[in-house]
């Protein structure tokens, strides 16, 4: 987390570096929310553009919070625009995040054992792969606010105040959301056999 005391306007370079540092996580956040690669990309593009256009002249220190706020809002917009999916599709599609055909029935892939739509994960052990899939699934199933709070706090490494600013809620709410999200994720991991002393 950059706590810069410099208030000068972010240069093109600084903005470039910031966006480069945040784009992958932003993409993943989108993916957790909408379960759709192309839509997630659109979300990130949208958010980046909005940040640059509206706040490209802000100090570098303010950009992370501003970007996250824009990102969350953009996710919410896109999420609302998506077709209402059947419960089946919503539940199952988080297992198969690569497909962007909204008419696609995840059952087809599940039944077709030879058709693995997951890309090969080169340097991951099987256990890690399974764990990752689990975490991503669980994150996708979280209520939006809980997921937001969790990811902003622990993945974007924002403090409570900044997270609250990005989410547009109180710090108390942020803590509550994080607490619940963490418990749900921990419970899922524990159920999968992951034990932590």
């Amino acid at each position, binding site marked *: 987390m950059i706590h810069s005391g410099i208030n000068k306007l972010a240069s093109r370079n600084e903005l470039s570096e910031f966006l480069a540092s945040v784009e992958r*996580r932003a*993409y993943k956040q989108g993916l957790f929310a909408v379960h759709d690669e192309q839509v997630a990309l659109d979300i990130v593009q949208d958010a980046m553009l909005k940040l640059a*256009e*509206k706040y*490209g002249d802000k100090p570098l220190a303010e950009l992370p919070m501003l970007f996250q706020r824009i990102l969350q809002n953009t996710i919410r917009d896109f999420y609302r625009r998506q077709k209402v999916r059947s419960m089946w599709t919503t539940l199952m599609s988080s297992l198969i995040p690569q497909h962007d055909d909204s008419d696609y029935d995840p059952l087809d892939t599940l039944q077709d054992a030879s058709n693995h739509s997951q*890309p090969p994960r080169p340097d991951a052990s099987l256990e890690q792969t399974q764990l990752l899939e689990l975490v991503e699934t669980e994150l996708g199933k979280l209520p939006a606010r809980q997921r937001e709070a969790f990811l902003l706090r622990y993945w974007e490494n924002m403090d409570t105040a900044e997270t609250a600013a990005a989410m547009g809620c109180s710090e108390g709410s942020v803590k509550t959301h994080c607490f619940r999200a963490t418990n749900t994720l921990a419970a899922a991991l524990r159920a999968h056999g992951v034990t932590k002393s």
Partner: protein
Amino acid sequence: MNTENYINTIKELLEKSSSQIAPHTLESLRSARINALEHQRTQHSVPVLSWLGHQSKQHESFRSSKSLNWLIAALLAACLIIVASYWHAHVTEHEISEVDLAILTDDLPIHAFLD
């Protein structure tokens, strides 16, 4: 704390996943980033600067044709007024000739309609 360890595990896993994004997706993200930079708002820029840039060429010819369009619109209005007044006069004259004929052929004498 138990939960904290879980959080760390999750963080690691998430970091791992973000490093495993497909190359074509990374390329799309990069293009999005560059595109956003081109639209960066700076102290001296106006929002939608590039949009203006695209439009400026059209703008110039448009500005000079704008005054021409005003002239044409004024001419058109003028001739509409002319035509309208001509038509109105025509209708009025028609009415007058009807009344004149009626007076000249009515049962009553003309001076019945005089002061």
